[in-house]
């Protein structure tokens, strides 16, 4: 009897804490949404009025005035990015920002960002050079997030550079690991014109000052670091003697092995030996049906928001890697419950109409990451997985 009462009391306390936390999350979200909304309203006026002046709609503009207006315009762009960063940070803190990872090409991500960076470089009197080859391996990431990372890192690099100097944006295949490395290198006036030899082994040599970029950095780097973390990537800063400083990050190539390995490593890092994953195969029997598409869309949003992994295996087929330590599996079950067509279908492996769900199993990450990976791999033919 006492044990039952204690259990009820514990459950009530737990629910009370959950309600309080949910209330706090809602407050943070509302304040962040309202504040960023108001900031963007003010920035709209700044940008519009500067543009009216620049276009000569309010009278003649001298060359000097034109330059000043360009600087104000550039600053309003930066403020806008900072507002976006603050908004995204609040969404990250409240679990509302998710990464929609997909197979993409670095060149396609960099191209739309380049004009904005070139404009910033021009305003600061710096040169921006890029070297993103079209034959780089495909990467697996959220392209919108990586664009934001490039803008943040590029702006930081351009701001940190001392004139006259240049910033070089580059990307290259790592020959040793399944990753593409992307970096911004700042070359000071006394640095040689040649780019440093990007031999990755050299990063571990004592001549390179290495530090992980995480704390005590401006909001741009904090945001970049957090977005990269969501994309199973990490940000580092290197300083070579005789060469400039390089900010770089690595993005996993679009191979299931590499992505799973990074996901499990991260899970173990945060959850230790408690970490476990449940692997679920989801297949849409009619992927073109709008109702099924809407359900899958809801599923993807739910899965991504909780920091789980979703691998798009084939047309209408996904592999869900849900973390048991977080609320991954519980949330998936809630999603399933909420979207079931009728009560009789609530037992797994039944699923909403048009979707087949198969729970492949649960693996503890207690063992070495590689063991977990090979254990999962025994159930799946990885060569079949085309990301």
């Amino acid at each position, binding site marked *: 009897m006492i044990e039952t009462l204690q259990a009820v009391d514990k459950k009530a306390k737990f629910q009370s804490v959950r309600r309080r936390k949910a209330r706090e999350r809602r407050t943070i979200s509302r304040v962040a*949404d309202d504040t*960023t*909304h*108001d*900031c*963007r*309203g003010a*920035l*709209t*006026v*700044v*940008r*519009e*009025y500067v*543009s*009216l002046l620049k*276009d*000569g*709609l*309010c*009278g*003649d*503009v*001298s*060359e000097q005035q*034109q330059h000043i207006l360009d600087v104000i315009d550039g600053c*309003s762009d930066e403020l*806008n990015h900072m507002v976006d960063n603050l908004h995204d940070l609040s969404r990250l803190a409240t679990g509302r920002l998710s990464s929609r990872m997909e197979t993409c090409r670095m060149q396609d991500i960099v191209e739309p960002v380049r004009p904005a960076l070139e404009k910033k470089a021009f305003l600061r009197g710096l040169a921006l050079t890029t070297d993103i080859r079209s034959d780089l391996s495909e990467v697996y990431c959220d392209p919108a997030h990586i664009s934001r990372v490039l803008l943040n890192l590029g702006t930081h690099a351009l701001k940190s550079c001392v004139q006259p100097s240049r910033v070089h944006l580059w990307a290259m295949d790592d020959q040793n690991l399944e990753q593409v490395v992307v970096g911004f290198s700042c070359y000071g006036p006394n640095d040689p014109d040649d780019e440093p030899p990007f031999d990755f082994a050299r990063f571990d040599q004592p001549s390179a000052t290495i530090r992980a970029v995480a704390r005590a950095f401006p909001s741009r780097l904090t945001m970049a670091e957090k977005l990269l973390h969501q994309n199973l990537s990490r940000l580092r800063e290197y300083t070579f003697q005789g060469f400039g400083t390089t900010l770089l990050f690595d993005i996993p190539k679009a191979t299931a092995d590499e992505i799973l390995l990074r996901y499990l490593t991260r899970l173990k890092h945060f959850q230790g030996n408690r970490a476990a994953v449940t692997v679920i195969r989801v297949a849409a029997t009619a992927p073109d049906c709008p109702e099924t598409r809407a359900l899958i869309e809801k599923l993807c949003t739910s899965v991504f928001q909780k920091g789980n992994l979703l691998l798009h295996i084939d047309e209408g087929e996904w592999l869900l890697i849900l973390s048991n330590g977080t609320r991954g599996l519980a949330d998936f079950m809630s999603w399933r419950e909420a979207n079931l067509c009728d009560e009789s279908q609530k037992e797994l492996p039944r699923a909403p109409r048009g979707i087949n769900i198969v729970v492949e199993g649960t693996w503890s990450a207690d063992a070495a990451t590689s063991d977990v990976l090979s254990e999962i791999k025994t159930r799946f033919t990885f060569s079949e997985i085309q990301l």
Partner: protein
Amino acid sequence: MKPTTSPVWEKPSRALLAPGSTSDRMPGGNAKRVLIIEDDRDIVMGMTIRLRSRGYETLNACDGGRGVDSAVQNHPDAIVMDVRMPRMDGLQALSQLQSLVATRAIPVIMLSASLADRQSALDAGARFFIRKPYQNDILVAALESALNDSRERENGRSLNA
């Protein structure tokens, strides 16, 4: 140095931007009429100057309710409307505009500082959604595209008739 131009706007005149007022600098009788429904007077003023410099006639209203009334009364060729406004917001106003025969065909461009409003604005029937802070050339391009679409639709209708 930019070439010398005569300013379109010489002196701020907020009286000109009183709700429901129209421009007193109408270029000819064929000028397209754009209704700006926005509660931020500074944004209205900037947008008014920009659109007038492009030869548009402008009207304005400071909330959704007044905007719908003005649209019914003045039959603008296009509407540029903010989403978040006091009293009646842009989405409610858009829904009313879509339900009225007199205003259903008017193309509406929705503006909002929040991307979260994008889908609901497009679902409600907005022709374009533009996020604030916007680039003014994007706004003008969207407006021209919306007006061209309407013109083509009207031409198609007269041919069918």
